[in-house]
């Protein structure tokens, strides 16, 4: 069902989301399109009902004066009526702009101003209050329509209107102008802008990324092909609507494939709702998978001895052969039998508790995921995979195909996508899912799309022998050692941080002979470890300087080196020497950003004497540092830091990770 342009998967008529909706309403009117848990019961809306509601909202908006090309702000949790508003806006040729619902009012003001919003559909009183607060700064805001009227009875501002009222108004409008909406839908075209998603703005002000119907339909179609998704999938929609991933999974794919999205009862009930729905298709950031695993492990510690024994016994079996069975690789009959037994006794019930019994495909992205974590889920039979993409590419560049999962790669380029590497290793992407432009920012658009039409991701990576893309770092951070081998600090640091004893790491080596690293130990994990061995210590600085701790960390660094040696591109950048810092890197001291990212240059300046000592091969170095306490006072910490060498390994031929 495909060719390279991604649009032939559907007849030409189905090239916009409103047309797709009307198509589903005609083809599968009674199939559930959406569910929402309310008053303790899952309420179902069929495709026909969704189409009816979308019509009413669209006509209501038109009656209020919403025009083709207008932007509609949508703010709130994942509620069916907010998803309907997205399509309703698209029916009229408008552009929905989703905002993060927990943003504070001044942050919202910027986006509302930038997108010149006249109409906003918001969830509840909380969001209405924010709109009223920033109204003086966004004078073109004319109408605020709310979904949940609770607490809003005494609000008398004329700009406010309930969504119920709007739908009623729309119904009347639709009856009086029966051809109006169909006419509007007919005017739509595949390369119209279907949505504007704002980038997070970690580098400068947020930018509105304009995506077309065609782009998201292509991304959705391609992802469906890779995973063989059908209209029978169930997905839980619980991530912010303003995030490109939710728009792809809960909106575009659901619209293209015609499957069911499920909205949780509230943010706190997601885990319960997940179990009740048992999705077949699931996305979660690595953090969620990590928390789930931690909870399972903690609860197993409290289980009785027999259960604990069973659990660990069969987890060993799963570790040995679970991932291979999932990948369809040959596994001995004995292991197969043990895995079958394990599934009966441990993995099956465990997946049931986690709400993962029915999952066919689960995805994670957004941050580096530890190999152990990844392996755990795959070994118990959850088909967890990674993808790579950004807002500008509809979250869709590379996907891990079934049966060929490598823990440290993001898979192969997805259908219709062309990936190419620039000379500096930067990943360049071309395909139908690229952004049309940044809203009102031709300068930024020109900067990010090169002359040949490739989008410059800013990420550096390379293809391994099997054609899988490995992301290593931000392109601007990647450097070279003196001998010319590639040095990707983030890549090395992430590998170090996967060890529970290491909290932060900073690697140096650009333009030098070798790679060295600062390590921050995790006070809790290492403290615990020290207590268990009866190692006395008086605080972070003392613990960090203990020879036994150095031993522990050196072990971790050596494992990372062994890992790097196995990778032909990276074998040159093994860590030669390291030291454990005498204080924790802290955002209050300017060493980390507020989102806990290392500020490399600042640290290099502040600890220049330590870096020199590392590269000069001195065994110890004295350092005195000014620190800021939480109450604003300043103090000094001085210490003599030990510097240790680490074993490095000869480069090996790439061995297949599995």
């Amino acid at each position, binding site marked *: 069902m495909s060719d390279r342009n991604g649009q032939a998967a559907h007849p030409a008529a189905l090239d916009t989301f409103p047309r797709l909706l009307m198509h589903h309403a005609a083809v599968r009117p009674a199939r559930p399109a959406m569910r929402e848990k*309310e008053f*303790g019961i899952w309420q179902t809306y069929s495709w026909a009902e969704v189409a009816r509601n979308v019509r009413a909202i669209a006509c209501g908006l038109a009656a209020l004066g919403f025009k083709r090309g207008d932007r509609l702000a949508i703010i709130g949790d994942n509620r069916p009526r907010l998803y309907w508003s997205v399509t309703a806006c698209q029916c009229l040729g408008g552009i929905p702009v989703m905002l993060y619902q927990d943003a504070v009012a001044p942050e919202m003001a910027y986006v509302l101003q930038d997108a010149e919003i006249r109409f906003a559909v918001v969830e509840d009183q909380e969001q209405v209050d924010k709109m009223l607060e920033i109204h003086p700064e966004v004078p073109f805001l004319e109408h605020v329509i709310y979904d949940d009227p609770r607490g809003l009875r005494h609000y008398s501002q004329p700009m406010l209107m309930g969504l119920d009222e709007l739908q009623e108004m729309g119904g009347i409008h639709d009856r009086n102008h029966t051809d109006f909406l169909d006419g509007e839908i007919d005017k739509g075209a595949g390369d119209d802008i279907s949505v504007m998603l704002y980038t997070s703005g970690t580098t400068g002000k947020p930018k509105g990324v304009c995506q077309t119907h065609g782009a998201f339909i292509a991304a959705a179609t391609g992802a469906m092909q890779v995973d063989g998704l059908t209209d029978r999938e169930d997905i839980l929609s619980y991530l912010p609507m303003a995030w490109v991933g939710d728009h792809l999974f809960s909106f575009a794919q659901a619209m293209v494939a015609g499957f069911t999205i499920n909205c949780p009862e509230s943010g706190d009930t997601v885990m319960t709702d997940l179990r009740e729905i048992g999705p077949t298709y699931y996305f979660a950031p690595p953090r969620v998978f990590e928390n789930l695993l931690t909870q399972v492990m903690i609860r197993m510690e409290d289980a009785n001895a027999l259960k604990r024994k069973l659990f660990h016994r069969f987890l060993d079996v799963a570790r040995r052969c679970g991932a291979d069975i999932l990948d369809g690789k040959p596994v001995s009959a004995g292991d197969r039998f043990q895995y079958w037994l394990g599934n009966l006794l441990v993995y099956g019930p465990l997946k049931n508790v986690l709400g993962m019994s029915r999952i066919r495909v689960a995805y994670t992205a957004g941050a580096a995921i530890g190999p152990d974590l990844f392996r755990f889920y795959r070994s118990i039979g959850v088909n967890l995979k990674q993808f790579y993409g950004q807002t500008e590419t509809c979250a869709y560049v590379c996907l891990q195909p079934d049966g060929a999962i490598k823990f440290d790669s993001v898979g192969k380029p997805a259908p219709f996508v062309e990936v190419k590497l620039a000379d500096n290793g930067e990943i360049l992407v071309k395909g139908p899912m690229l952004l049309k432009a940044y809203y009102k920012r031709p300068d930024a658009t020109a900067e990010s799309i090169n002359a040949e039409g490739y989008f410059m991701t800013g990420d550096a990576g390379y293809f391994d022998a099997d054609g899988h893309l490995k992301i290593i770092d931000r392109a601007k951070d990647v450097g070279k050692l003196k001998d010319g081998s590639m040095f990707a600090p983030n890549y090395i640091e992430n590998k170090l941080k996967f060890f529970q004893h290491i909290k932060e790491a900073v690697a140096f080596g650009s333009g030098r002979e070798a790679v060295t690293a600062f390590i921050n130990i995790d006070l809790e994990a290492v403290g615990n470890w020290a207590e268990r061995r009866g190692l006395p210590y008086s605080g972070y600085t003392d613990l960090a300087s203990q020879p036994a701790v150095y031993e522990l960390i050196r072990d971790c660094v050596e494992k990372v080196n062994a890992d790097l040696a196995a990778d032909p591109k990276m074998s040159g950048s093994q860590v030669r020497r390291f030291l454990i810092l005498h204080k924790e890197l802290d955002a209050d001291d300017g060493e980390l950003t507020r989102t806990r990212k290392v500020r490399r240059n600042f640290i290099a300046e502040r600890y220049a004497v330590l870096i020199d000592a590392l590269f000069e091969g001195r065994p110890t170095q004295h350092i005195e540092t000014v620190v800021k306490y939480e109450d604003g006072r300043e103090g000094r910490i001085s210490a003599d830091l030990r510097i240790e060498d680490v074993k490095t390994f000869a480069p090996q031929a790439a061995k297949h990770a599995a």
Partner: protein
Amino acid sequence: MMMNDMPQAVQAQEPTQVSGRRIGDVVLDLQNISLSFGGVKALTNISFDVREHEIRSIIGPNGAGKSSMLNVINGVYHPQEGRILFRGEERRRMEPHMAAAQGIARTFQNIALFKGMSVLDNIMTGRNLKMKCGLLAHALYWGRAQKEEIAHRVKVEEVIDFLEIQDIRKTPVGALPYGLQKRVELGRALAAEPNLLLLDEPMAGMNVEEKQDMCRFILDVNDQFGTTIVLIEHDMGVVMDISDRVVVLDYGKKIGDGVPDEVRANEDVIRAYLGTSH
């Protein structure tokens, strides 16, 4: 003390309309109530009234007689002297179940929930008086009982939604933190669809955030359902913010009555709270 019969003047001031809510006529009128246990005088000659749709607070230091006052309203204690008029009718000897049947619901200072039962079941007990079918029919979930149970469950779910406790619906109450238990107790009272709600220190033992939440819910109940609320609290700050009118008790006597600003300026109230000797 001269203060005892002074507040008539204060009460003469018409309570004003607050945030669009229409405060109506007097629903509960307590006249010269005195209550003693043996030789101990708990309440001495106390008079005040409660108007429809208002939030009326009773405050005072520990041992001032606040809970006794609430117990008098709800029929647990019978005052030796005085008259209680509820909706114009005199109630000389009211029993708690009669109070409940008339639409008076309450919460307790020390949480009185069924610890082993789920939040859902606890709130369901608030529907007790509205259940019409017999024990047997309910036990067998048969006939009219089935329909009735579904109707009650709908009401209970509305309360759960209102109080935003969906995530703990099936959790045993005993496993919940204190602040949430308080909220569940409010839920049980609300399930009875009361027209007069008595809250005995709903914010005791809570942290600031929990207190703010509870205030929000109390205001919402009052606003959305028009429920008249009588509130006991010893935390002055909270009470002054959400009440329409406040009665101040000290050593079983009324020392102040009126809108929060008047009470705040009242010399005797200040003295009682700052702890001058009597």
